[in-house]
């Protein structure tokens, strides 16, 4: 019992550290990557001076995030004369909290066996008594449904913020956010349905484990190779769900100042921004879990690598766990970087184009993808494969 508590507290601490870390790092990555993409240098002025010396640590502008945080904490916390100050105050948290909660069901590593990990310390190993834990905060058999349930809650926060701000720009932004996010949530769900049909489960750990095999002898059995079409649609819908360019209609700064969080200042506005950056990481983690095999590397098992032709590379349990965690983080980071690449490449849609794109382009495609998948799976089953 107490062992479980210790392990899960460590998992929770790791998850929070990862998400916060991504939130902070991504502000920097977004600045620097956009700068490099457009032949600029990017943020490089904030520094930390080592006390009592003249040594200034600039580290390629890495401390700009800290400067931002200080600025947001110290700025005037402006409050509009709103008729509904309670909703106004609670809205940033309604946006921020579900984003963190989604990570609870995402597996960020394989199976952890503490007694093997601490085999050098017999007392600790004995205490854990050979128990094994899937590296995930909550292993729920409704994993994917939980993801969509919590993902859908951010809409409420955006709507609350817009309604309670007593501001026309906020209201317009909230209306846009509502229609856009609900439309794209539907498409996200539909694209994932194809995967559920193939894997026959919504348990994310199961889904990841089923992706650890090999297709046709050489391709890793990742979802992106089984459902390339759904992967593309899912990523597009997820970016739209996160309200980033090219789908940033709810906060289009050239039209609506800042959209639904126009009236938010200081750290409350910071929460909205932070939630957006963490959601980039969450989308990356979800996409990794569903389509890129999660923590799996091609040909990797829980004991090491097995390459075609039966070349076996044995690895210790600690090395395997570490590799899996690093592989997961690397995949998530690459996807975050890809989302930032998209954000700095494409111009914004018009509002009517966003909805037409959702309902007349992506929705039929997602439905077609689902139908084809279902027929294909049914045919395979009927043939007894």
């Amino acid at each position, binding site marked *: 019992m107490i062992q479980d508590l210790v392990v899960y507290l460590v998992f929770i601490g790791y998850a929070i550290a990862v998400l916060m870390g991504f939130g902070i790092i991504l502000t920097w990555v977004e600045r620097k*990557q956009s*700068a*490099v*993409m*457009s*032949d*600029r*240098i990017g943020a*490089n002025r904030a520094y930390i001076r080592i006390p009592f010396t003249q040594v200034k640590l600039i580290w390629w502008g890495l401390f700009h995030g800290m400067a931002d945080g200080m600025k947001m904490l110290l700025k005037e916390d402006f409050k509009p004369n709103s008729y509904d100050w309670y909703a106004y105050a609670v809205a940033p948290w309604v946006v921020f909290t579900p984003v963190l909660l989604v990570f609870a069901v995402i597996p960020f590593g394989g199976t952890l066996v503490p007694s093997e990990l601490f085999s050098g310390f017999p007392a600790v190993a004995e205490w854990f008594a050979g128990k094994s834990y899937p590296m995930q905060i909550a292993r729920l058999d409704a994993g994917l449904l939980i993801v969509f349930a919590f993902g859908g809650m951010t809409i409420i926060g955006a709507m609350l913020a817009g309604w309670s701000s007593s501001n026309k720009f906020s209201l317009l932004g909230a209306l846009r956010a509502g229609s856009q996010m609900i439309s794209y949530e539907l498409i996200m769900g539909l694209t994932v349905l194809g995967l559920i049909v193939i894997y026959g489960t919504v348990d994310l750990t199961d889904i990841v484990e089923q992706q650890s095999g090999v297709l046709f002898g050489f391709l890793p059995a990742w979802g992106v190779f089984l459902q390339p079409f759904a992967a*593309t649609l899912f990523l597009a819908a997820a970016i739209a769900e996160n309200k980033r360019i090219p789908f940033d209609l709810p906060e289009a700064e050239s039209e609506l100042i800042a959209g639904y969080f126009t009236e938010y200042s200081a750290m409350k506005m910071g929460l909205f921004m932070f939630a957006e950056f963490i959601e980039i990481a969450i989308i990356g983690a979800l996409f990794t879990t569903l389509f890129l095999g999660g923590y799996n590397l091609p040909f990797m098992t829980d004991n090491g690598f097995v390459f075609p032709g039966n070349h076996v590379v044995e690895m210790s349990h600690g090395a395997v766990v570490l590799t899996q965690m690093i592989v997961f983080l690397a995949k998530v980071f690459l996807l975050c970087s890809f989302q930032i*690449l*998209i954000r*700095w*490449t*494409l111009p914004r849609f018009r509002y009517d184009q966003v909805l037409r794109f959702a309902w007349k*382009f992506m929705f039929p495609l997602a439905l077609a993808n689902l139908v084809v998948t279902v027929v294909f799976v049914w045919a395979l089953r009927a043939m007894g494969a």
Partner: protein
Amino acid sequence: MAYDRHAHRRKEYWNQPTMGVWERLYLPEIMRGIWITGGVFMRNMAKWMTGRKGALTSYYPEETRFDYAAGNRGKHVLTQRADGSGKPQCIACNMCATVCPAKVIEIDAAFDPSDAVHPKYPARFEIDYSRCIFCGLCVEACPEDAIRMVKEVPDVTARDRHAMWIGKEELLTWKPQSDVAKRYPGPGRGGAGGGRS
């Protein structure tokens, strides 16, 4: 009135974009865009990784550009006397301050009776770069070739306007002294009225 389903048809413009099937498919064009921006990213990143500069912009106060035109009117300098004393050629006549359209030059004249050749000199010579318009009229007005403009721009990034004044000490840091036009008679040859030869 019956509903006219063409009433809301949009007007056709002469530069109406024509999109083929390939463009309408949407995804290929997006991939092309990402290919372009990603290529730029990779190219610049490779430069940064190998220790070169992958950007077109420059670090402003630290990096001054090397390709200023030869005749660029940048920072002012006070020329120094050819005798190597390091004193300014300026005779504190106030002509530059008078002609200056932005009124940025302030001169306090002083008198040194022991210096027979050049008794009148500026005790204080300051230029307010927050207002200077770099027109070069002071250089043209100077009868003694005492003030010139070099092609490099002044380093006046500051947090308030009081820090944007440049005084005599800094204006006198211009080192090449050999080409100053005005020649002085040596201390032994000339008199008090001695000037150009």
